[in-house]
């Protein structure tokens, strides 16, 4: 008996100028850097309409991994590179590197400790500088400032009260094709950061599409512990990482327990996809009382946790003077003075780290 392979593909329109069917052209163009794609818009009408289609934009963004070199608390360069292609790595280290012309006004060198990298997601990197939040897409050299500051916590701080400070998270909601910035507000009291997870606090959720904040109330995350204190140095550098549609923060915190002060590590998650459109917060995981454990076992718990998060990819820890943030779907580097939290580390990101540190 004979069989004939006649895929539906044979009936595709062949009107494309280059002779390739449009899905093949799309595959080709999605492998290019943003600059080449911009140029391809000018080649002919069919390429232009293919590139300007929202589906292509999304596909292309997913292939771009943004990053920034953070050195001495300023952003020296923003860059973007193409996701490593498993079957063909003739150019595994292809990177498009920009001096980040628009970043200059974000950073003033005199102000240290003010610039934070919030996170990277879907081609976009998010910075905050003195509670102004910036979104940067290095591939197309675009920098956007959020239109308004995040909502203040309740009750509003008096003039003399401890200053309000924020933790941010960045996520991309695929359902609504929208970037979300989540703000958690707290107070700085001397060297301590307090009230971030106080029940009833306002949590801000910014939608880049609508250019506005929505709010929700902080639920009772850490039950019966009104006095969560974020351990200062690390909380200044809390970054977010998105896994499975939720924004996650690794939180180092302490709380008084009778005579002792307990150090704990937890993960707070924000689910962007809940039906009300605002999302919800929950504690995803936390180590109850690490003071009872050896340091090594805390590290081990974190490792297994991260393994869960990234679905089987191996974690690692590092710390260094130069912090490099870069993220892909599951890769994220965030290092702070106290704890190092590092997602699955691609060899080439590590390589960049070594180059910079060396």
């Amino acid at each position, binding site marked *: 008996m004979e*069989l004939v392979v*006649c895929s539906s593909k044979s009936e595709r329109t062949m009107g494309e100028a280059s002779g390739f069917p449009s899905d093949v052209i799309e595959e080709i*163009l999605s492998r*290019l850097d943003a600059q080449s794609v*911009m140029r391809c818009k*000018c080649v002919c009408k069919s390429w232009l309409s293919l590139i300007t289609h929202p589906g292509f934009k999304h596909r292309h963004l997913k292939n771009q991994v943004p990053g920034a070199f953070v050195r001495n608390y300023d952003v020296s360069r923003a860059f973007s590179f193409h996701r490593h292609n498993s*079957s063909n790595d003739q150019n595994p280290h292809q990177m498009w590197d920009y001096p980040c012309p628009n970043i200059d006004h974000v950073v003033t060198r005199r102000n240290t400790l003010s610039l934070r990298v919030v996170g990277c997601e879907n081609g976009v990197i998010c910075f905050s500088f003195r509670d102004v939040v910036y979104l940067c897409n290095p591939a197309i050299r675009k920098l956007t400032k959020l239109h308004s500051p995040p909502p203040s916590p309740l009750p509003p701080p008096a003039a003399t009260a401890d200053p309000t400070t924020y933790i941010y998270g960045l996520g991309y909601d695929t359902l609504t094709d929208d970037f979300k910035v989540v703000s958690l507000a707290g107070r700085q009291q001397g060297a301590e950061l307090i009230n971030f997870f106080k029940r009833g606090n306002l949590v801000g959720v910014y939608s880049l599409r609508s250019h506005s904040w929505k709010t929700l109330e902080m639920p009772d995350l850490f039950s019966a512990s009104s006095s969560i204190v974020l351990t200062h140095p690390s909380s200044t550098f809390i970054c977010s990482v998105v896994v499975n549609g939720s924004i996650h923060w690794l939180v180092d915190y302490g709380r008084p327990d009778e005579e002792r002060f307990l150090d704990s590590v937890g993960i707070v998650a924000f689910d962007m996809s809940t039906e009300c459109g605002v999302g919800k917060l929950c504690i995803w995981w936390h180590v109850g009382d690490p003071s009872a454990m050896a340091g090594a076992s805390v590290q081990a718990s974190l490792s297994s946790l991260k393994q869960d998060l990234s679905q089987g990819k191996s974690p690692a820890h590092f710390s260094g003077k130069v912090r490099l943030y870069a993220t892909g779907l599951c890769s994220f580097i965030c290092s702070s003075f106290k704890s190092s939290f590092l997602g699955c580390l691609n060899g080439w990101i590590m390589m960049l780290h070594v180059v910079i540190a060396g």
Partner: protein
Amino acid sequence: MSSSSTTTTTTRLLMLKASDGVTFEVEEAVATKLGAINNMVEEEGSEDLICLPNVNGKFLGMVLEWCKKHANNNTNSDKGNDEVNKWWDKEFVMDLDQNTLYHLLMAADYLSGTELVDLLTEKVASMIRGKKVEEIRETFKIKSDFLPGQEEEIRKKNSWAFE
């Protein structure tokens, strides 16, 4: 090339017939590197002759050569073999002229040879990357069909990309 002395006993052979009547006898493990053939073998079971009216013999031969290489190396996959594969792939696409590249990519796409499509589309992408608009048009023999002024407008919007 096929030095598969270890797997002779249970290997099933398939006949593939190209549009120009040329036939190829290949091991099932090789042919099923192609998604279209894999589907057919899984769904239809025991057919031995498969006709491929959209690919001519020359390009089907090249596709199968690639499959053979990758099927062999899959059986004992270690790091070293991976390196050999990459090197071999590089050689495979290095000297392809544009006409061959076009037909090969069309054949790979038609046969759903995903990895081969990746390899070839990357090769085409490398011919576009960093090139000027005029160079791209020339390479792919594309005529601009924009109205006067349209192209300038696009350039103006993203002038940094054309520096």
